[in-house]
Every structure is written in C-alpha cells, then in structure tokens.
C-alpha cells in the first residue's frame, strides 16, 4: 500500500529547470525554445534531455552557432505573438548577443511607446570552478542588471530554478535568467504542482540577529555554510536571497540590516562595479543610522578566471572567506 506523496519530492536543479520549461510549454503553445544543441543533444549540461521527444523539433529548435542571430530571431518572434526561450549555453556568450539583448529586446517596448512587447526569456549560466578557464566561467549578470527594460533572475536552488523560470516565461518583459552551472546536480525539494516565485521579493533563508548576509545564486549555499560556522562561535547570521537583481527587493535587505546592524554582500560576479556594490549601497543608504560597521562585500576576484584549479579556487567567494569577513565585521578576533 502506497501513501500519498506528502513528503518533499526532490529534484536536481537541472531537472527543476526542465520541468518548468516542459510544464510551461504544455500550458502555452506560444512557448518554444531555441539555441545551440538543445534538441537531440539535450544541451551540453543535459538540462533539456527529453524535451525534443515530447515537443518536437518545431518547438525545440537547434540553431547554428550564431548567438546574435538566434537571439535576434527570438526577439522578432516575441514581438509577433510567440514566447521564446532563448538558450545561451554559457553566460560568457551573452557578450556575442549583447546588441539583441540590450539595444533590441530591452528597448522595444519603451521605444514604441508601449505598443510592442517582447516576452522573451534568455536562459544562460554563470559560475566558476568548473576548470573551464576565462571564457566559460564568468558571472556576467551585472551587465544586464544595469539595463532598464531587462529583468534578471538568479535561482539559488532547485525550488527557485523551477519557480523563477515559470515566472520568467509568463512575464511580458524580457528576462535574463542565470543558472549556476555548478548546481545542476544539486538536489532539493521541488513541488510537483504548478507554482511561481514572484520577481522582486527576497527570501530570508536563515534568520539571525547579529549580521545580515545577502547572497545570490550559489553564493546562498556558501553563505548558509558560513552561517553554520559563525553559529559555532556565537554569531547569528541572517541570510537573504534577493532571487532577482532586477527588480531588487531593497526593502527586505534594509530591514534586515536595520535589525542586525551589520551587512555583508556576496555574489559571484566580478567585485568591481558589480551586483555587490549596488546592493551594498542600497543597504548603506537605507540603514545607515542603524549600522555598527561599514557594509562589506565579496565578489569574484577582479581577474580573468584562471584555468589552474589552485588559482581558480582563489577567485570565488568561499565559506571560509565569508566566515572570516563576517567574523571581522562582528569584531570577533
């Protein structure tokens, strides 16, 4: 005799992405996916395996290696009644499609006085430590977060991967969603039923009273690991995941920092001019008179991502660096 599934069902991050896309494609015939190696190959990270068998090559469309070309085709399809998901295999390759993302997709609605819409999702990756060197390892979400007209989502786990993808597909504006390629095999609870995660609403991943750690994407896991270490030395860290860098839930982070009086921001993009700077300034502006220490931030080291593992590991924020920085902020030697 079997019991109804009430306990949390677990999926990997990659499976959660695939389930979101499949469910949305079943729900809405306007949704299709286009990109390199997305059909029979199921994507190099195997995230899309099985989709072409269900939806066929007319809706899971393999393209030549032409990022600007198929990104532009996605924009045109979105402007004329379809809802494309444009698959950009590595986040580093958005640089190739930047005109289509920044000058076309992001601006069409505004430039047309609101008459044209571009309901498009660019799904791509971020994250280092895969030993892929400088052109396959960057986290370039700050680039698109800078552009009015774009929304940017950073799922931090399987639950978020499904819920944010569904929200992105249903949004009438262009969304860029960055999946951490190191997390595709990470497992976590994912509801089997339909759900979405609203954009612009941060989630408190762990409550605490001594320091606020704002972390994005896989840095949420790093921050939660650091929070455990901090707890062992008597520091209660509150970990907040903004989930989207635009719209950005500034108030949730400000409110938390007011409560804890200290804040640290962790993100895997380059530190300079990065997402950490934007969030840190929002906290500094909004919670200044409640802060007992300057807002600190940790991003990726400002170097091209090196190949050698011993060097690459130095470039990304780690549990240890987050722990040490938070400890110092709390003046614990």
């Amino acid at each position: 005799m079997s019991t109804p599934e009430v306990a949390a069902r677990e999926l990997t991050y990659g499976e959660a992405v695939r389930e979101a896309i499949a469910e949305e494609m079943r729900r809405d015939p306007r949704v299709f996916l286009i990109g390199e190696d997305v059909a029979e190959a199921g994507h190099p990270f195997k995230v899309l395996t099985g989709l072409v068998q269900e939806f066929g090559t007319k809706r899971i469309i393999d393209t030549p290696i032409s990022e600007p070309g198929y990104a532009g085709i996605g924009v045109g399809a979105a402007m004329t009644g379809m809802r494309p998901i444009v698959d950009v295999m590595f986040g580093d390759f958005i640089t190739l499609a930047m005109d289509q993302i920044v000058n076309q997709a992001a601006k069409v609605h505004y430039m047309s006085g609101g008459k044209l819409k571009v309901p498009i999702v660019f799904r791509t990756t971020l994250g280092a430590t895969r030993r892929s060197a400088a052109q396959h390892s960057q986290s370039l979400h700050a680039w698109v977060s800078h552009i009015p007209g774009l929304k940017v989502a950073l799922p931090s786990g399987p639950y978020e991967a499904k819920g944010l993808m569904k929200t992105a597909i249903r949004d009438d504006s262009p969304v860029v969603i960055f999946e951490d390629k190191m997390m595709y095999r990470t497992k976590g609870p994912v509801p089997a039923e339909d759900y979405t995660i609203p954009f612009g609403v941060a989630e408190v991943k762990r409550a605490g009273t001594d320091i606020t750690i704002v972390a994005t994407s896989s840095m949420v896991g790093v921050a939660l690991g650091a929070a455990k270490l901090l707890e062992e030395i008597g520091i209660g860290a509150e970990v907040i995941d903004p989930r989207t860098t635009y719209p950005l839930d500034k108030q949730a982070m400000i409110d938390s920092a007011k409560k804890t009086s200290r804040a640290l921001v962790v993100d895997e993009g380059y530190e300079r001019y990065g997402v950490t700077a934007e969030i840190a300034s929002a906290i500094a502006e909004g919670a200044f008179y409640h802060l007992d220490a300057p807002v600190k931030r940790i991003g990726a080291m400002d170097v091209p991502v090196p190949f050698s593992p011993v060097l690459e590991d130095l470039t990304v924020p780690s549990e240890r660096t987050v722990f040490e920085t938070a400890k110092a902020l709390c003046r614990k030697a």
Partner: protein
Amino acid sequence: MTTRAIEPRMELEANLHMYRQMAKIRAFDEQVNELYKSAKMPGLAHLYIGEEAVAVGVCEALRRDDLITSTHRGHGHCLAKGAAVNRMFAELLGKEPGYCRGKGGSMHIADPETGNLGANAIVGGSAGIATGAALSAKMRGTDQVAVCFFGDGALGQGLLYEVMNMAALWRLPVIYLCENNLYGEYTPCGETIAGDILARPRALGVHAESVDGQDVQAVHATMRRLVERARRGEGPAFLECKTYRYYGHHVGDVNREYRTREEEREWMSKHDPLETLASRLTTQGLADAGVFERILTDVKAEIDGGVQFALAAPYPEPNEVDQDVYA
C-alpha cells in the same frame, strides 16, 4: 470584354497611387529638412529623398498584415506601409500623439497596426527581428511575409549572414531588402564591400536578385514575385535595389565631401523615381501633366496639415518618462 477594359484602368490607378505615395514621402522629408533648418525639430533625421521607389514598390506588393522592419533612414518605409503623416511628424517633434508617444523619434517609429515592427538605429540590427517575425508567422500558421529593409552599410554586419543562413535552412518567409544607395554613412560602398553582393546570399542558398531601385514599377513587379514565392513557402529571398540618396547621410551632412555634385546631378536628372514614372505614363498616353500636378497639390495639403497638427500637439507629460519601461 469589360474586364479587359477595366484592367488597364486599375493598373493606371495603381501606378498613380504609387506616384502619390512617392510624392508624399518626398514632400514629407523635404518638410523634415525645413523643420531641421528652422530648429523646430530636436536631433537629426536621415532623409529618404531619392529612394522613394524602393519603399513604395516594396510595400505596395505587401498586405497590411505583412511585416516590415525599417532603418535609421526609415520615414519612407513607414509612410509606404501606411503610417499617417500627422502622427509621423508628431513623433519627429517628440510630441505625445506621435507613433511612439514621442519616445522613439525619427529612428524608432513603430506602427504595429500597419505591420511596421519598427525602425532601428543599429545598422543591420533588425535582421534578426525580421527573421524572427518570419519564423513566428510560420509557427503561428499565418501566411504573412516579413521584409527586412537595410542599407548597403548593413552588409558589413555579421548578424545579417547568421540570420540569412537560418532563414534558408528553415525556409522562412522573409525578404532581405538591400537599399544600395552607394554610401554607408560617409563612405563609398566600393571601399567597404568586397566581391559581388548577390554572391553573398546565394552562397547561403538564398534566392537573390537585383533591380533598378529608381523604377517603382520594376521594384513592384519584382517584389510581387518574391512575396508570392515566400508566401508559397519557397523560402527567403534577397533583393538589391540600386538607388541613390539625394541628401547627405543626415540633414546636417550638407557638404558631402565624399562624392561629387556632378554625380548627384546625374542621378537626380536621369534617374529620379517620380520623373521616371510620370514621363513613362505620359509617353504611354495614360496621363498628362495635370494629373501629376493635382497629386502634388493634394500631397502638399496633406503635408501642411500634418506638420501643423504636430507643431500644435502637446509634449508628453513629465510623468511619462518612466512609463512603459516594462510591459
């Protein structure tokens, strides 16, 4: 018997309509130049004068629900596809009743109601959009055709070849319409284009032709063939229209050091699109000078009314500035 009597008259009416459309575009852009010179228009504009037969010959071969993408030199495309003069002027002056509520301006006029997906200020930037519109038409099961207008300057952009490749692979109903006016901005195309232009699309398996872009009847007849071909599902085509811009790259480019006045006179006197059509219809005994004069008078009244509308129209309210960033 009766049908044989009607057909030439319908053909004449179609030709006179094309003449009127070309005259409207010319008068529109002459007025734009006046607005610029009298400092009534913010920014710059790229005049279409000299190239009217291309936009009109192409758009008269399209249905209202067929789709176009346009360029920085796009006023002619918008008008030929059916945009109204008054809202065009209003947009150029940054006024509220403009096609984009004053947020787009000369280089970004979009009018979905007439199938115009927008002018684009990135050279070649709309090649993807037009191709995507064609993919969308195919997926949605309509028989719409998409036309991508671009200049010879866009032949230097890689995007164009990427999307032509995909359009050929997927047999998309899209026509790549190259307006070769011999100059990419301020540089003669001989300095920027290697080899044979038509060899480029042909290498990708895209059907390619060239036509005299100053002859609206020739452009129209060629386009009708290519549009029908695309509608039947026979795939993309590339049409080079050899044409000439009478003015500079934009209204402020008055010295035009990169070309001779003699060359300009040659094009204007021997290859003018309006003159070419008018003299042909006159020689054939189908119309006389009075017919064309009446059209020009009508057009002038429409242009005058349009510009008065735009000058009197209100600017957008300040609170419009952050509206429509997101849908």
